[in-house]
Each structure stands twice: as structure tokens, then as C-alpha cells.
């Protein structure tokens, strides 16, 4: 029987407005073993913690229960407070009477009654808690960044600047990501390549940064501080060390019909290619699906013209295994597929394009060399219609329920750039709401309207009808004027919703990092831990966590880097002491637990046992607590009941069940 103290927090009015805290205190005083109970407005405050410490010392408490917010919030706080007062930190239990009680119930009677029951369950559990001691594990001082866009590059640069080794894994042949595809950036209209290329060069040149381009993460094992990652380096068929990047192979390659991924399929590229002129590394790859040599065995022109002898058709994929202390996900985004949005005629007319495609059209290195022209006939458009929220804010089976956040601003940018360069072109924007929170953002949008005469119409577009004369009939709402508008346009640009890059779910699964229904990675706390995944040692950078623009991405990238540096700066980490443990006397060595353990943490040893006076040697399970992550799968699988989990033992959980059902 422990001497237990119960501490009930008001959390200002967050708890106290719905739960009668005084009554909770009075009621729990009657519980077995409770020798102290009190309430305080903010238990997590310094004064609150001092209160707890004082009680522990004065009343010689052996265990405490804090009735407060979620343990995910302040369990660590109260454990530290207990430790400072000389109590083992694992003798602390939290009864969650805020998130699971006061915030979801309105009736004070009901909420108070529930708070008491939750407190009782925690008291029943803490009676059975034991003095656990965390172990230690070493930290591998190297970080992995998955994704080589602006988010990944910035994170890697910041980590490397602190003196740690960083590897970037990028699945395409070059780093640069989506930002390299943009023409100009809002709200200052700087040229995207001009500000990105130096960063790419810095990353490539940094002695602490190692690039794995044209590579993908194959598998991940281990845990915070000790990840082991297999990286697949896809065969480039070009020797990175020999290639000088002269570009002759690309010029001479006879197969030039593959769609250029970089230009969003608007033009073609050769079978041996670098995605764009400033690509880093400036070493081409051979796309086996369009290479004549790969398909038929004949050709080999690139090999013949390569002065450096860098072409190697026999190259194979290579698997590299590397150890990391921390992993940053920076996988970025793509625009959604528009097949389901037939009403916008995107698949029918080449003159209906997405905004990202327009970026390529406006770019001097793009398919039209930067001239604004219709992709169907190359004519200069006179009337351009922009449609906002294509697939965003769609709570249906076709689109995404969220706001993609960047579209209002880039559409204003596009409209402004077009009006600036081609003053005779009329630009109309159909919008639902114009959302411009951000420094100098609304001013930017207003400039599009006031200085550049962009015509903003509040209302969605219902249908785009390609006309026999090649024009497009746009039928939309003008809600403010109360009209249905039918207007001719030469080009229609769709502000297409963005979504996390396709492979992110697979990566999240490998990392056991949680992911939401829209495939955005979940942060450990939406406000207070926005760049950490709930999985220790995994951090988030850029749009993989939620829609954001370039400055936000760069800030978050830096924040993620700081978290990584904080982790790598430690030599050792304390491990979770809530691991499995086998009772040698009960174990019959059947191997069932070993089979369900996802971490290979269970082994077998021949041990001498004394079973009721009979001494014999038995094969029994032994848990390696450094590997055990404490899931508890083995405890349920064990047929003889030998396996138990420290901190969540069978007796503890049963005691909670009993207390709740009492």
C-alpha cells in the first residue's frame, strides 16, 4: 500500500468551470491509501509544482496522482517535479480530467462524477506502480533529410552549419523540388531560380552534406538516436565521378519523345536527361523506358559521344545502409489529378492549364521560352480566365476538404505578371474568397486589382465549354451582381489543389509517423510541437505537414533543423523504461512472444531456475530492453502469462478497469 497524494488542477476555469474540484478533492480523500489531497488553480505552474514537492516531502508520499490535462501535455512536467522532490518519476499518474472530461461535458454533476472515477482509476493504478529506471542509448550524430526541395535543402543547410553530417535523399535526378519549377515568387516577384540556385549550390558544396539524388528510402528500422535506413540509389547509367556535365549526350540522343516531368509534360525531353539546366548534380540519368539502347540493344550514341566515358549501361540499383540519429521528412507536394473535374475541360483542351503549368509557360526555360501563348495553336491570348479553388475546399468525393493556402496569392501574382507584360490581355479571376493573410499579401492582391486592373468576380465556374473556333466558353456565377456570366476566353488557368507527394504514405509507414486522412503528416502537437512528429526522432519540414508558402516552409525547415540539432547535440538518450519483462519461472520457452515482437527484442537463454525447490536449466525468454519499445504485443501473445509490461502491467490495467466499473 502506497501513501498517495492527489493534486487536482483547476486549469483556470478550463476544468473548474465544469468540474467541482473541491468535491473531487473531498471524495478522493476517502480512497484507500490517499493521505493527501488538494486543489490549485494551475498545478503546472511553478507554485503548483512546489506544492506537489512540498507534499511529497512532508507527507512522505510514495505515489502521486495529478488530475489535470492530458498526460501528453504535462506528464513529463509532473514527473520531473516528483523527481526533484525525491520521488521516482514513474510513481506519478495523470487523470485526464480536461480533454477527456471538463471540455467535452456540460453538466457539472456528470463531469464531477466522471472526474472522480478517472481519479480513482489513476489511484488504483499508482498503487501498483514500481520504481522504474530509464536506460541509456547512444545517439548517432548524423541526420537524414527525405526530400530535396527548398524545405529539405534549408533543413540540411542549417543542420550542417551546426557541424553535423546530413544526407539528403531525393527521388528525382536533381535537388530543387517544386520551387525550381516556379517562375517568380510572391509577393516580391523575385525570380525563383535566382534565389534557389545559390542554396542548391551551397548544399551541394557543403562538406557536411551528402546528396543521394535519384534515390529513395527503402526501409527504416531502429528508433530515436539509432535509426538504420536502407537507401536505394537507382541506376543512373552515368558515372557520377566521370561525367563532366557537358550535355553532349542529351543533344545527340535520338529519342526525344519522353514527356518532360520538369515542364509538367508540356514538352518533351531526351531519354538521357537532366531535368533542367541548373540541375544539381549536373549529371544526367537514362530513362530506361524511352532509351532505344535499353529497349532494343541498338543505338549507344550517348556512349559514343561521351568524351569522359561516363556512360555505363550495366549500372545496377545499389542499396546503401546508413545509421542516423534523426530523420526529417520534407517530401513536399504535387497538384491533384484533375480527371474527375471534367467540367473544366482540362483533359479536352490544351488551353486549359493548371497554375503550375502556367509557371512553366511563363518561364524563359519553359516550353514556350517564356512567351505567353496558347498551347493549342501558339497564338497570343487576349482573354484569360483564372479559376480559384479547383479541388480545394471540396468536401465531396472529388476534391480536398482543406484550403490549399497558396493559390490566392500565386493567382494574383500570375494575373499581375500577365497584365504587366501584356497590357492588352484581359484577366478575369473567379474566386470564392480571396485569402491573403501574410506580410504584404493583401497589399499585393489589391495592387493586382487597383494598379493592374485585374477583374475579380466572386463566384465559381460551373463549366468550361471548348468552342469550335478554338475559344473557351466559361460559364460562371457573379454572386455580387446576381448574374450568371457566359464569357469567351482564350486560356483558362486552374488554381489546382495541392496534396502531399504520392509516396509520403509509404514513407510515413516506414517511419511509423502518423498521417492524417489527407496524407499530411501529423505533428506532435498542433501548436506547441509543430515540426515534430509524434514518433520520437522524426521531424517535419515543408508542405508534407500542411499547405504553406515558401517563407513559411523555410521557417519551418529551420525550426526542424533546430530540433534535430538539439537531439544530435546529446551524447546519450534516456530510454523508455516501460519495457516488457518475462517472469523466468512462468516462461516455458515457446517462442510465441519472439514471433510477434516487431523489434526483434526478445531472445532466449538457458537459465538455471529454482522451481519449488527443483533446480533445473530451462530455455526462457529474455527481453533486450534497449530494443524493446514497449508496445505490449508479447504480453498478450504469451500463453503462460510470463510476459508483462512495466508501467502498463496486467495488474495495473485490471486495477483501472475495476475502478472504472466499480
Amino acid at each position, binding site marked *: 500500500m502506497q501513501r498517495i497524494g492527489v493534486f487536482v488542477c483547476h486549469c483556470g476555469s478550463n476544468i473548474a468551470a465544469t468540474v467541482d474540484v473541491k468535491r473531487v478533492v473531498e471524495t478522493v480523500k476517502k480512497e484507500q491509501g490517499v493521505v493527501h489531497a488538494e486543489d490549485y488553480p494551475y498545478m503546472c505552474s511553478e507554485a503548483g509544482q512546489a506544492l506537489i514537492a512540498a507534499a511529497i516531502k512532508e507527507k512522505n508520499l510514495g505515489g502521486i496522482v495529478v488530475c489535470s490535462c492530458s498526460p501528453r501535455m504535462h506528464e513529463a512536467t509532473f514527473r520531473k517535479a516528483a523527481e526533484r522532490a525525491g520521488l521516482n518519476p514513474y510513481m506519478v499518474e495523470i487523470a485526464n480530467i480536461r480533454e477527456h472530461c471538463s471540455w467535452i461535458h456540460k453538466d457539472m454533476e456528470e463531469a464531477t462524477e466522471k472526474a472522480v472515477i478517472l481519479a480513482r482509476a489513476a489511484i488504483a493504478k499508482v498503487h501498483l506502480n514500481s520504481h522504474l529506471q530509464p536506460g541509456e542509448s547512444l545517439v548517432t550524430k548524423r541526420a537524414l533529410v527525405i526530400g530535396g526541395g527548398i524545405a529539405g535543402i534549408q533543413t540540411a543547410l542549417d543542420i550542417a552549419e551546426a557541424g553535423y553530417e546530413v544526407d539528403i535523399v531525393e527521388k528525382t535526378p536533381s535537388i530543387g523540388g517544386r520551387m525550381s519549377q516556379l517562375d517568380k515568387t510572391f509577393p516580391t516577384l523575385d525570380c525563383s531560380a535566382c534565389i534557389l540556385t545559390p542554396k542548391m549550390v551551397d548544399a551541394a558544396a557543403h562538406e557536411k552534406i551528402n546528396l543521394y539524388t535519384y534515390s529513395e528510402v527503402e526501409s527504416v528500422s531502429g528508433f530515436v538516436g539509432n535509426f538504420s535506413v536502407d537507401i536505394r540509389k537507382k541506376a543512373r547509367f552515368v558515372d557520377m565521378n566521370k561525367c563532366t556535365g557537358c550535355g553532349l549526350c542529351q543533344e545527340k540522343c535520338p529519342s526525344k519523345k519522353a514527356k518532360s516531368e520538369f515542364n509538367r509534360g508540356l514538352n518533351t525531353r531526351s531519354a538521357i536527361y537532366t531535368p533542367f539546366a541548373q540541375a544539381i548534380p549536373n549529371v544526367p540519368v537514362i530513362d530506361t523506358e524511352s532509351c532505344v539502347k535499353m529497349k532494343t540493344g541498338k543505338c549507344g550514341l550517348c556512349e559514343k559521344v561521351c568524351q569522359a566515358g561516363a556512360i555505363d549501361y550495366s549500372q545496377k540499383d545499389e542499396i546503401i545502409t546508413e545509421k542516423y540519429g534523426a530523420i526529417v521528412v520534407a517530401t513536399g507536394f504535387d497538384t491533384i489529378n484533375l480527371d474527375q473535374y471534367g467540367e473544366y475541360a482540362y483533359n479536352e483542351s490544351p488551353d486549359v492549364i493548371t497554375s503550375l503549368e502556367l509557371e512553366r509557360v511563363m518561364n524563359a526555360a519553359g516550353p514556350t521560352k517564356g512567351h505567353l501563348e496558347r498551347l493549342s495553336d501558339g497564338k497570343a491570348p487576349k482573354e484569360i480566365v483564372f479559376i480559384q479553388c479547383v479541388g480545394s475546399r471540396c468536401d465531396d468525393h472529388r476534391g480536398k476538404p482543406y484550403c490549399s493556402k497558396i493559390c490566392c496569392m500565386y493567382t494574383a501574382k500570375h494575373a499581375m505578371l500577365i497584365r504587366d507584360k501584356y497590357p492588352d490581355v484581359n484577366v478575369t479571376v473567379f474566386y470564392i474568397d480571396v485569402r491573403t493573410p501574410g506580410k504584404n499579401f493583401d497589399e499585393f492582391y489589391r495592387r493586382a486589382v487597383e494598379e493592374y486592373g485585374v477583374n475579380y468576380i466572386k463566384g465559381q465556374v460551373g463549366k468550361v465549354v471548348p468552342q469550335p473556333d478554338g475559344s473557351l466558353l466559361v460559364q460562371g456565377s457573379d454572386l455580387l451582381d446576381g448574374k450568371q456570366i457566359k464569357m469567351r476566353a482564350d486560356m483558362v488557368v486552374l488554381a489546382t489543389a495541392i496534396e502531399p507527394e504520392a509516396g509520403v504514405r509509404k514513407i510515413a509507414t516506414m517511419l511509423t509517423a*502518423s498521417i492524417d486522412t489527407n496524407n499530411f503528416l501529423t505533428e506532435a502537437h498542433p501548436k506547441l510541437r509543430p515540426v515534430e512528429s509524434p514518433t520520437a526522432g522524426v521531424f517535419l519540414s515543408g508542405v508534407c505537414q500542411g499547405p504553406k508558402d515558401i517563407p513559411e516552409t523555410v521557417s519551418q525547415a529551420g525550426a526542424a533543423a533546430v530540433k534535430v540539432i538539439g537531439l544530435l547535440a546529446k551524447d546519450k538518450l534516456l530510454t523508455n523504461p516501460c519495457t516488457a519483462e518475462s517472469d523466468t519461472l512462468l516462461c516455458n520457452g515457446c517462442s510465441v512472444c519472439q514471433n510477434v515482437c516487431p523489434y526483434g527484442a526478445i531472445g532466449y537463454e538457458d537459465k538455471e531456475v529454482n522451481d519449488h525447490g527443483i533446480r533445473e536449466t530451462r530455455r526462457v525468454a529474455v527481453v533486450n530492453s534497449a530494443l524493446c519499445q514497449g508496445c505490449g504485443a508479447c504480453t498478450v501473445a504469451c500463453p503462460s502469462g510470463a510476459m508483462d509490461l512495466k508501467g502498463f502491467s496486467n495488474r495495473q490495467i485490471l486495477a483501472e478497469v475495476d475502478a472504472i466499473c466499480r
Partner: protein
Amino acid sequence: MPVEKEFRPKIVAFCCNWCSYAGADLAGSSRLGYPADVKIIRVPCSCRVNPMFILRAFEKGADGVILCGCHPGDCHYSTGNYYARRRMTLLFSLLDYLGVEEGRTRVEWVSAAEGVKFSTVMNEFVDKIRSLGENVRLGDLRCKN
């Protein structure tokens, strides 16, 4: 005149620490209510839930037990929720056989981002248990005198 007391079921919800417990926290911080009849027990993973815990709950007078874990493929420990799903399928059909209706037990996947789902599921589950009424008490014959 005797007033018939409103039936307030006892419901135990086992929630895994990584997804469902966080989902319940999110339901709380988003103020998405569900009846106070639901009491949550935190476990590291849905696979930590021993069928014994559920039998014990019914033995002690619970009217419904729900187990929530991460979505398939999203388990923090990779495969725990698959074990839980298999174990529960077996247990629930046994319970049904013993006279504890299938509706009194449920497995649900709730992610850390699904506060809405957590609240919806709990509301539904409580409605279901209320419609089923009081549960039969499972007894442990070994303890009978």
C-alpha cells in the same frame, strides 16, 4: 410513484497512446462532446489489450467495451493493431456466444487527427449500448462460494 431511473451505461474505452488517445485529446480540445459514460484507459498500443481485460470489465459490470487503435498500416509499432484486430474478432464472437451481444464490443481505428471521428464513434457506441440496455454480468465461477 417510483421514478424509473435513466439507464446510464458503464463503458470502458481502451485507447492506444499514439493515435486514439491523441484523437480523444483532440476531440476534447475541439470541444466535441460525447456522453460521460465513456471512461478511457490509456494503453501503449491496441495490442497491449489482453482479452482478459475485457472479460474483467464485463465481469465487473461494464455494459460496453470499445478498443481504439491506429489505422491499419499506421500503427506506431508497425503491426500491433493487426494483432489486436485478430484477437478481438475471436474474443467478440466468443462473447456473443456467451450472451454478450456483438454490439457491446467494438474495435475502431481513430488517428490522432480524427477528433471528429472519435466523438462520433463514442456517441454512436453509447447510443448502441443504451439501446441494448443493461448487460448480463459475466461471473467467475471459481470465485463463487
